[in-house]
Structure formats: structure tokens, C-alpha cells
């Protein structure tokens, strides 16, 4: 059908299928700025267009409905100045992180300003209410709107929206545009799905309807004969290597306990078969035609079920250790029908008891500590499973090319993807190239290899280009979730609040497979206990297999739940002792110069060592929050009749990469015009890492950012990097880039010394890109040109490699002020302040965006986000209607981020990590504030109205994660 309409001001005629969603039609016609985040549920708003003057979701418009219509997409920026101004304002306000939602946000603001030239906050909220963003926390969008309005009146208008640091430096500590932001804001081809060739084949999974079952028989014959079907993978014809999907450094602290397809399915949604067909529809039809006969087994649906004597065994394969250690004291002989379980080294697991891993250790004498206490309390805290929900789901495009396998991936760990996929397929690593495209949100979930193995294998074995994208439902249940945890805290203290003993017992639910099974729960301990100075501490960690979806990495990596338990328990202790909660924290917290003994027991997979802390900004941060919240005065009254007001405060910490374990590398090339090419191994997943590394190089080599291009995360082109996890980006990848720049600088100085005939000690590299001697000077451009000529000294290239044993802790103090309705259990966050010591903020406005985003996520986790299962283990809230994430309306009225930088001695220009830590504060701070408001302790998150009413005694029925 031929239709005519106006697209971005131009009359258009397209031959279309009228019954296709407009979203699909636009993308098929090369308009890739419309994105798909919810598969047509109509909730995410990322496919938005302006149709006849109003913003609508193009997934809910059929193409036949736009005949004669006026349609605008963000691509209108090419001819529309207002859109360009909005895009620039979004960039200058640091609103562009992963960029997946940015075109939709741009259109929403454009549409708003068309009808209202002076919108207030309510109007902005309304305009952006239909657009989900998981990265930014929305707060900086308000600035972007205001900046746009001012620039529409005065195009040259400039405003310093955010603080800057390090006045002596040109780039570091200054607010600069994110290097990839303009491409994102203008809706260019950046993400994996934007690079898929028209001749690509499609993968559809057949997934298990049972939580625990053997596949007795699988018949693919009918499906294989269906139109378009190329092949079908099952446990009968897939590679037989066991592996872990955890994208961790080798040898991984996660058991190799899964096959590409297993004869046994271990959760509802587990892989049964993968169909490769010409179209997605053909693959779906064929998947539905596969006949499977199951032997259904009783499932394990909770940590308590897993521990019961005689519980069903989730993994009953033969157990062995790859490092040659002989497993002792555990059952190792298993059911031959199940794949073997291979630990790279002992994680103290006992799989046949459903124990995937365990650890216990401590310092001092815990019994003596409790015996010396005047008060002992013991409390248990529960954190249910939540999903990170990146708006771009897991997606991969794999194709064979010139005898090699090329994988375009949306991943945080390109090198680990290469290693794992090569091993699974049986290829040497040189045959595999991973190209990390822009990532539409990762948050940890894309540290796991959940689609690349299948797509890579199918592409390699069939010789076809293969596209595989998770549906939103699959993203909810088969990517990776935060671990469910139950944490018991036992604290002993003197009457004056001095802690004498701290005991932490943690049970975690790793789900059907053991990726990150020890490291996530251990991080709950290692990022919460070291905040306290106490001579007697002990922890015990057990990680259990269940038949629920696999858990894994998610921003904070266990720390949010550890912080919830430790900080809330401290507040409960303060109440019993009759001590102000902040005074109790002050009395026992880590401080500058403190020796943190517990780190002796908390090495990251190897023996730890106590650390003597340098400077620590906690005192100043607590002081600022205390003042801002008038902590020592009575709380202000509630703003609504019948509601009650309360305040809470916590201190939190994280790390900056994995000292002693991980490494990063970078290379900087001086090109013949004096510009620079930075090859960084780092994987920017929207956090701005490429901008950070570019700034570090620009600062060191005294050039403008515009003179640098960053190529990152391509295993063929860029050097090795551990990947983006464990808050390592700035610290590891940043330091590698810095070292490469310093290396290049030294090489330039040496080369210039010969040309200028002056000793290196007399030379300085000064802005703009000039080496200045006492008698002469030479620009980097000229130096580069000469160096590659016949009389030169070879191309000037700097190399940097970074590893460290130094642990750099970012710290923060979070304060919340809320009101709660005792009759309904509803909670409203009025104020949330995050005071943060991330060392030198390399790019302060982007760093603030990281904090806003993390805090709002954590507010969602604390108040309403929760994965719910039915009694058979099936996840029942697999979409954004049933699993709620915060919208712009959930932003606290007073949402404030403030940096209190304390330089780290090893970090680049004093920088430390910034993003992950900020998810650790909301749950305990809100729990404490709820107690202040309502007098109840909420020890299970999320603190839904229902749980609050239960705690108040208003209703009796316990709300369960398994319904």
C-alpha cells in the first residue's frame, strides 16, 4: 500500500504494510532514532514520535493510520533549530548517559515547548511522564528544559549549571560534553540493532515452562521442516563445554555449571532450544512446533527450601576443581544425566546440598566481644530480587567475515566475551573479534554472556549473519537479577554506643546457576563491614542454588543489601541505647587514618590485608547533611494532613575496581596533524568512561578534547581491559589512559629534545599541544610529522598499563526526609541528599548524573520494585506494567547531589569511582526514616504499602515474593 504523509517537514510516499506497527516501519526505512524498550507494551516511550502535533508511542500506531499525517522524529534536527538547541541543552546538562532514551526525551521537550514556552516543574513532569530512563534519575532534565528556554531567547546563553573542581587543571574537574552525546541525541546508528544487515537470520528461544525438569525427549523434526528454518540447537547437538556466563577475569570465582543447552532445565525460562530462521516470525513459529517431553522434578523456590534436608538437588553433576585440588568433605559423584560442575578453585561450595559457595572469617574474638557488651541485638533483613532493566535488552549480531567470527555486542566485558565464546565454540581467540557498540544501559546485567554464545555458535557453524535480541520478558527472567538475600546482624555494644562485636550471617539465592555466586554476597560484606571500626567481627556467607532465574551482577553488586542490613541494624541499636542515630555512626565509623582490620578477611578472591586509610570525607559529608536536614532540631511537620514525617541517614562505601586482580591497558597515538587517537580497552556502557579517558589524555598532553577521538572496547583494535564492572572504569581504565598519555608525553619530549637540541629537563609540554624549550618550541603536529618521516624516530605512540594493590574507597552519606501515610502505607520522598566523596570528579556533571540515576534506582528498589513468582517458580511480572520502575514523577522534590572530594593517591588526578556506591544508601535511609515517621522497622525491602501496613498491624496477610 502506498501512503503519503509528511515526515520531518518533507512530503513522503512510502510503500508500506498498513498493519505493521509504525515503529517497525520507521526502523525498516532507516529511522533508527525510534527505539524499542518494551516490545509494544506502550510503556517505555522510547519509540515516541510527534504525530499531528502530539507525542505518541509509535508501537501503538499502525502504519496505515499515518496516511496524510504530519510526523516528526528526532531526525527533524537536521532542519529544525529548536531541536538542535534542545539536544545541545540535554548534552550541556549532562542528561545523555546511555543515550537510548535521548531522542524520545528530545521530542518530549520539543512537544512541550510547542505548547508551553514557560513550563513549570509539573508541566515538565507531565511532558516526560511517558519516557522511561533508567540511567539519569531525570533530575538534570529540568535543567535542560530551562537551559533550552533561555537559549531559544538568546542562542549564546551560557550558564554554569554544576560545580567544577581543580582550578589548576584545564579539563579534569571541569564540565565537558560527553564525547558521544551528540551522536546519541541525534539518533544516529550506534547500538547493535542499528548495524544488522537486511539479510540477517533471527534466533528465537524455546524456553522451559518448568522450574525443574529433565528433558526426556525433544522432537524438532516438524519445526526443522518449516519455512525459513535453518537449524535448531538443543542439548543433543550443542557444544558440550561447561562454562560460566559470568564475565569475570580468568580463572573465574564462579563454577562452570552450565552448558549452552542442558538436558536438565533449572528455572522457568531456561533454554530448551534455539531456532535459527530467515525471519523472526518463522523462528517463532518453528519454536512453537518443537515437541518436548519433560520429566518434571520438584523445584527449590527459596533459600530455606534449598537448605532443607532431602531438598531436590538443583545441580547434581560430578564436582571437580580445575586447579587440581581434591574436593574434600563434600559429595562429588553425581547423576550422569547432568553436566559436570567444575570450580576453577575452591569456593567452599557443596552443590549436592545446593550450596554453590560459602565463606566465613573474621577478626578478634566475637564471643568475647558479645560478652563485653551491655546490649546485644539480633535482627534479620531480607532483600528481594530486583531487575536492572536496561532499556536496551541483551542483544547481539554475529557474523562470519573473512574466516573469522565478528560479534557486535552490547556488553560490559568484550574480552571476557571473546574468551568465553571462543571456548564454547572451540575456536582460538584470534578467530573471534568482539566489537562493543554503544550500550543502551548495562548496570551489571551485561557483564554476563547470555546471548553471545548462541549467536556466535550459530553464525560460525552456519556461515550466516545471526541477530539475537532478548524480548523484554526474557530480559526480566533470563538476563540476570540482583540476588535475593537474607542477612542476620548481631551487634553488641556498650551503653555509650561503642560496638564490641559485629556478626553478619548472609544467605544468598544465586538461582539456577552459579555466576557471581560468591563474589556478589561477599561484596555485601566487604562494602558494609569496613565502614565500622570494631575489634571483634565475624561474617558467614552461604550462596544457595534454587530453581529461580539466575542472579548475577547488578550495580552495587551485593553492597546495597549489605548496607541495608548493617546501617539499619545500627539504627535499631541506637534506638535501644537511646542514642541519636548519627551520633552512634560517628562513634563507630571509619575515619581518616583508621586501620581497617576486617579487610584482612575480605580479600577479593585471595588473602586480604588490613588497610590504613588515608583521608576520608565522611566527617564532612555527615556534617553537611546534618546541617541541611537540621538533624538536631525536631523534624518538620508533614505536608499533608494525616501523614507523618521522618528522617534517616546512612553512610555507605564501595570500591574502585579489584586491586590485585584486574588490569587495564590503553594506547595513545599522536597523528600527523597533532591530533590524538586513544585506543582504550575500557567498555563505556553509557557512564561516560570514554569522556573520562579522553579528558585524562587531553589534560596530560595539553590539548583540547576536540583533538582526541576515542576508540574503545574492540578486541581487534584496542588493548586488553578487564571490562566495566566493580566500579573500575575511572580508576583502572582511566589510569591506563593516563599512563599511556604520560608515556606518549615522555616520548614526545625525548623526540623534541633531539630536534630542539635541548635537554628534556628544559622542555615543557604546554597548551595548546606545544613543546616549549628555553630556546625553541615545536608543536605536537610538527613533531608527529617529522617522527614518521625518514629522518624521524618512528611513530609516537604511548602505552599504558594499570594494575594496583591499592584499595580506593569512595564514601558517601545519604540523607532522606519522607512522609508516610499510616492509613495506606504510601510513602512520599520529599528530600534526598547524596553527599559523595568520589575523589576528584573527572567530569562533575556526568558524575552527578551517575549519582542521581543510582539513587532513583535504589528508591525504586526500596519502595516498589520486586520480582514476583508463582508457586511453581514462574516469574509473573515480566513487563513494565507489572514491574514498576521510577518515572520522572518519582523524583524527590528536593533531590540534591554534592561532592566532597578527597583525593586518592593512586587515582587519576585523585579520582575514585562514583556510580555504584550511590545505590547503597536508599534502602537503609528510607527504612530508618520510616521508623522515624511511623515507629516501625521495615526489615524486608521493598517497603511496599502492603508490607508497611502489615508491619503496622493493620493487615495480617504476609506478602510473599512467591504468590
Amino acid at each position, binding site marked *: 500500500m502506498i501512503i503519503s504523509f509528511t515526515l520531518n517537514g518533507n512530503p513522503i510516499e512510502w510503500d508500506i504494510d*498498513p*498493519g*505493521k*506497527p509504525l*515503529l*517497525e516501519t520507521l526502523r525498516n526505512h532507516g529511522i533508527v532514532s525510534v527505539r*524499542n524498550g*518494551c*516490545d*509494544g*507494551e*506502550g510503556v517505555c*516511550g522510547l519509540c*515516541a514520535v510527534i504525530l499531528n502535533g*502530539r*507525542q*505518541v*508511542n509509535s*508501537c*501503538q*500506531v*499502525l502504519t*496505515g*493510520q499515518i496516511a496524510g499525517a504530519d510526523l516528526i522524529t528526532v531526525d527533524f534536527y537536521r532542519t529544525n533549530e529548536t531541536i538542535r538547541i534542545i539536544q545541545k541543552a540535554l548534552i550541556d546538562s549532562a542528561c545523555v548517559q546511555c543515550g537510548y532514551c535521548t531522542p524520545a526525551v528530545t521530542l*518530549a521537550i520539543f512537544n512541550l515547548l510547542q505548547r508551553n514556552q514557560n513550563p513549570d516543574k509539573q508541566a515538565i513532569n*507531565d*511532558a516526560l*511522564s*511517558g*519516557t522511561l530512563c533508567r540511567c539519569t534519575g531525570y533530575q538534570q532534565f529540568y535543567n535542560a528544559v530551562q537551559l533550552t528556554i533561555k537559549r531559544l531567547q538568546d542562542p549564546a546563553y551560557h550558564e554554569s549549571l554544576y560545580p567544577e573542581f581543580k582550578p589548576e587543571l584545564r579539563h579534569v574537574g571541569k564540565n565537558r560534553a560527553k564525547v558521544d552525546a551528540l551522536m546519541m541525541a541525534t539518533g544516529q546508528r550506534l547500538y547493535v540493532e542499528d548495524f544488522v544487515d537486511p539479510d540477517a537470520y533471527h534466533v528465537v528461544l524455546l524456553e522451559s515452562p518448568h522450574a525443574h525438569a529433565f528433558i526426556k525427549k525433544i522432537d524438532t523434526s516438524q519445526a526443522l521442516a518449516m519455512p525459513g528454518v535453518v537449524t535448531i540447537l538443543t542439548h543433543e547437538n550443542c557444544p558440550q563445554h561447561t562454562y560460566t556466563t559470568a564475565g569475570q577475569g580468568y580463572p573465574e570465582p564462579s563454577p562452570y555449571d552450565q552448558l549452552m543447552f542442558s538436558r536438565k532445565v533449572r528455572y522457568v525460562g531456561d533454554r530448551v532450544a534455539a531456532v535459527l530462521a530467515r525471519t*523472526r*516470525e518463522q523462528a*517463532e513459529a518453528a519454536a512453537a512446533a518443537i515437541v518436548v517431553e519433560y520429566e518434571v522434578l520438584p523445584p527449590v523456590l527459596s533459600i530455606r527450601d534449598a537448605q532443607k534436608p532431602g531438598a531436590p538437588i538443583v545441580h547434581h553433576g560430578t564436582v571437580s576443581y580445575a586447579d587440581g585440588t581434591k574436593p574434600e568433605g563434600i559429595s562429588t559423584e553425581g547423576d550422569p544425566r547432568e553436566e559436570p560442575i567444575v570450580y576453577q578453585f575452591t569456593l567452599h561450595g557443596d552443590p549436592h546440598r545446593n550450596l554453590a559457595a560459602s565463606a566465613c572469617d573474621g577478626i578478634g574474638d566475637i564471643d568475647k566481644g558479645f560478652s563485653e557488651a551491655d546490649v546485644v541485638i539480633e535482627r534479620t533483613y531480607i532483600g528481594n530480587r530486583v531487575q536492572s532493566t536496561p532499556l536496551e535488552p541483551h542483544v547481539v549480531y554475529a557474523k562470519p567475515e573473512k574466516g573469522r567470527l565478528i560479534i557486535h555486542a552490547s556488553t560490559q566485558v568484550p574480552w571476557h566475551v571473546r574468551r568465553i565464546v571462543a571456548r564454547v565454540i572451540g575456536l582460538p581467540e584470534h578467530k573471534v573479534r568482539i566489537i562493543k557498540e554503544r550500550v543502551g544501559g548495562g548496570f551489571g546485567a551485561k557483564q554476563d554472556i547470555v546471548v553471545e554464545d548462541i549467536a556466535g555458535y550459530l553464525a560460525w557453524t552456519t556461515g550466516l549473519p545471526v541477530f539475537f535480541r532478548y*524480548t*523484554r*520478558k526474557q530480559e526480566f527472567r533470563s538476563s540476570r537479577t540482583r540476588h535475593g538475600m537474607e542477612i542476620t546482624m548481631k551487634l553488641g555494644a556498650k551503653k555509650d554506643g561503642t560496638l564490641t562485636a559485629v556478626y553478619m550471617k548472609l544467605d544468598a539465592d544465586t538461582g539456577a546457576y552459579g555466576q557471581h555466586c560468591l563474589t556478589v554476597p561477599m561484596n555485601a560484606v566487604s562494602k558494609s563491614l569496613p565502614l565500622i571500626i570494631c575489634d571483634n567481627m565475624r561474617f558467614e556467607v552461604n550462596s544457595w542454588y534454587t530453581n529461580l532465574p539466575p542472579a548475577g551482577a547488578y550495580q552495587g553488586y551485593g553492597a546495597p543489601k549489605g548496607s541495608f542490613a548493617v546501617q539499619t541494624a545500627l539504627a535499631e541499636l541506637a534506638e535501644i541505647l537511646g542514642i541519636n542515630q548519627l551520633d552512634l555512626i560517628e562513634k563507630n565509623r571509619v575515619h581518616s587514618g583508621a586501620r581497617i582490620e576486617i579487610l584482612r578477611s575480605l580479600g577479593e578472591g585471595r588473602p586480604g590485608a588490613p588497610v590504613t586509610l588515608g583521608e576520608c570525607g565522611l566527617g564532612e559529608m555527615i556534617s553537611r547533611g546534618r546541617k541541611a536536614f537540621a538533624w538536631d532540631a525536631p523534624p518538620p511537620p508533614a505536608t499533608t494532613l494525616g501523614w507523618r514525617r521522618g528522617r534517616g541517614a546512612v553512610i555507605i562505601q564501595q570500591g574502585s575496581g579489584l586491586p590485585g586482580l584486574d588490569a587495564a591497558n590503553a594506547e595513545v597515538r599522536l597523528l600527523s596533524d597533532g591530533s590524538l587517537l586513544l585506543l582504550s580497552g575500557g567498555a563505556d556502557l553509557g557512564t561516560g568512561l570514554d569522556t573520562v579517558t579522553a579528558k585524562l589524555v587531553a589534560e596530560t598532553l595539553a590539548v583540547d578534547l576536540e583533538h582526541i577521538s576515542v576508540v574503545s572496547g574492540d578486541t581487534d583494535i584496542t588493548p586488553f581491559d578487564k571490562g566495566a564492572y566493580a566500579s573500575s572504569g575511572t580508576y583502572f581504565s582511566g589510569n591506563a589512559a593516563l599512563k599511556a598519555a604520560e608515556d606518549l608525553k615522555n616520548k614526545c619530549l625525548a623526540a623534541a629534545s633531539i630536534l630542539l637540541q635541548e635537554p628534556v629537563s628544559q622542555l615543557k609540554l604546554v597548551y595548546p599541544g606545544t613543546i616549549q624549550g628555553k630556546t625553541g618550541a615545536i608543536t605536537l603536529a610538527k613533531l608527529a610529522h617529522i617522527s614518521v618521516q625518514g629522518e624521524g624516530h618512528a611513530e609516537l605512540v604511548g602505552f599504558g598499563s594499570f594494575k594496583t594493590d591499592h584499595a580506593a574507597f569512595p564514601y558517601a552519606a545519604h540523607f532522606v526526609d519522607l512522609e508516610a501515610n499510616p*492509613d*495506606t502505607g504510601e510513602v512520599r520522598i520529599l528530600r534526598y541528599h547524596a553527599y559523595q566523596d568520589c575523589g576528584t570528579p573527572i567530569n562533575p556533571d556526568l558524575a552527578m548524573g551517575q549519582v542521581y540515576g543510582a539513587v532513583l534506582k535504589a528508591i525504586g528498589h526500596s519502595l*516498589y520494585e520486586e520480582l*514476583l513468582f508463582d508457586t511453581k517458580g514462574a516469574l*509473573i*511480572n*515480566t513487563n513494565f*506494567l*507489572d514491574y*514498576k*520502575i*521510577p*518515572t520522572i*514523577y*518519582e523524583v524527590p522534590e528536593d533531590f540534591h547531589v554534592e561532592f566532597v572530594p578527597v583525593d586518592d593517591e593512586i587515582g587519576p588526578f585523585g579520582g575514585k569511582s562514583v556510580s555504584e556506591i550511590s545505590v547503597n544508601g536508599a534502602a537503609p535511609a528510607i527504612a530508618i526514616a520510616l521508623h522515624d515517621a511511623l515507629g516501625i522497622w521495615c526489615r524486608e525491602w521493598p517497603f*511496599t*504499602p*502492603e508490607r508497611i*501496613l502489615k508491619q503496622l498491624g*493493620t*493487615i495480617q*496477610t504476609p*506478602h510473599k515474593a512467591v*504468590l
Partner: protein
Amino acid sequence: MVTVKNLIQPASLDEAALYTAHNPQVPMLAGGTFLLAHPEPLILETVLDISRIVPKFIDVKESEIIIGSGTTFQELLESNAPPIFIKALLTMSNRNIRNRATVGGNIGANKSCASLIPIFLLLDAKLKVTSSKTLVPLQTWLHNPQGIILEVHCNNPRGLAMNFTFFRRTSCDLSSITAAVAYKISSTRSCTELRIVLGGFSKHAELRPDIASLFEGTPVPSDKQAIRTRIQPLLHAITDQRGSAEYKEYIGAEKLAEALMSAEVQP
């Protein structure tokens, strides 16, 4: 995402009426926020697109309000509709959806969380539909939907005390519970002609005369706990991902009590 194999786009209402009379099972498409909101791949064989032919207008008269069924939520919000309509309309998800969702679609979908049905039921709404020469009471039509909705006629609520309350988990969530009330306040400050509609306790939003009778003729209720205690035993919910039955029954009674106590006389 929904794909339609055969999208029928009639040129006139007569053509559409004829088509639907012969093909009553074929779903109709106006704004698409219900029919096309489907996160799983779904192929519909045939759909009748009425989006361009159903009337779009709002006529607020002295005693009556008439709304064209093709009017979107956002258009109605921007009109001079009475405040109680605004309150209900704002519970529709978010602006993107309100820009597309139509009044007729909200009635046709007849979901328990419907934003407008409670208000229309309170205001004795009648529908002009292609299948009838006379106006059809909304309640009758909801039990036996036929034809294409063209117009909604309802009483102007001026002078009535009305309220619309709801409960949802986040600002842009579907309402788990809706409670709408309308009554006249007598010279003795009593509730008369009380009507109550509840959503979230059955497949569709429903008038609840059983609950209304508890308060008919009594002074305007002011003791929330007492109201809740009387109402809660009459509510029967199911446990699902939005909460346990007990919780929903409690919160339904709470929201209805709030609606009764804080109803405002419509200007």
C-alpha cells in the same frame, strides 16, 4: 508488538457500521492503547480502524455533557470538562498514552481500572451507537456491547458532590483500585442519591448500590475508620502481583472512605 494482517479502514461511519454489523467479532481500533498494547508478538487477522471516522468533540451544556467517542484523553483534559473528569483523566498512565487513548476506547475496553467508566456510570451516561436509533444506557451497553460508540451523553455534574480516588504503586501505574462517588448534600448535610462505583474488585468497574445503601440518607460521613469497617466486609478481591486480597480489600475501603469524606461539589 501487534501486527494486523488485514487493516480495514472504512471511509465513512456508515461503511464501518455495516462492516461491524456483519463482522461483530472483528476488533475495533481507535487510539490503539488497549488493542495494540501487547508485549508478546501477536498477529491479528483483521482489525477495523475507526480512528478517523468517529466524532471528536466536547459539548458541555447546562445539564448535559456530550463527548465524541474519538476524543482523546488529552483533548478532554484540555477542554472545559468539570474537575471530576480532570481528576479521572489524569489517572491514565502518561501523556504519550493520553494523546492517543480515546473516550470510546476506554469504554470499549471496559477494564476494571478504566478511568472514565466510573465517572460516566455515576452520571447516568448513555451512548449513541451505530447499532441503535436511541441512546443506550452505558450500563446496558457494557453488559452487551454492540455497534460502534459515537457519542457519550451524561449529566452535567454541577452541584453534585463527587470524588474519584485511586491506588497505584507509582505515578504512572495502572490503578489497582478506583473508587468514585457522587451524591447530593441535603439541607441537613445528609448524603442523598448516593452512587458508588468501584474498580479493582471484579472484571469491570461496577456500581455498588449495596455499599451506597449503607450511607444513603446519613450525614456526610466523617469517621474514616468507621466507614472502612463497614465497607471492607463487602469487598472481595483476588491475590495477584498487585497485592494480597486482604490488602486490596483494606485499601479499597480506605480509598472509598477517602472519596466519601472529601467529595467536592462540582462547579
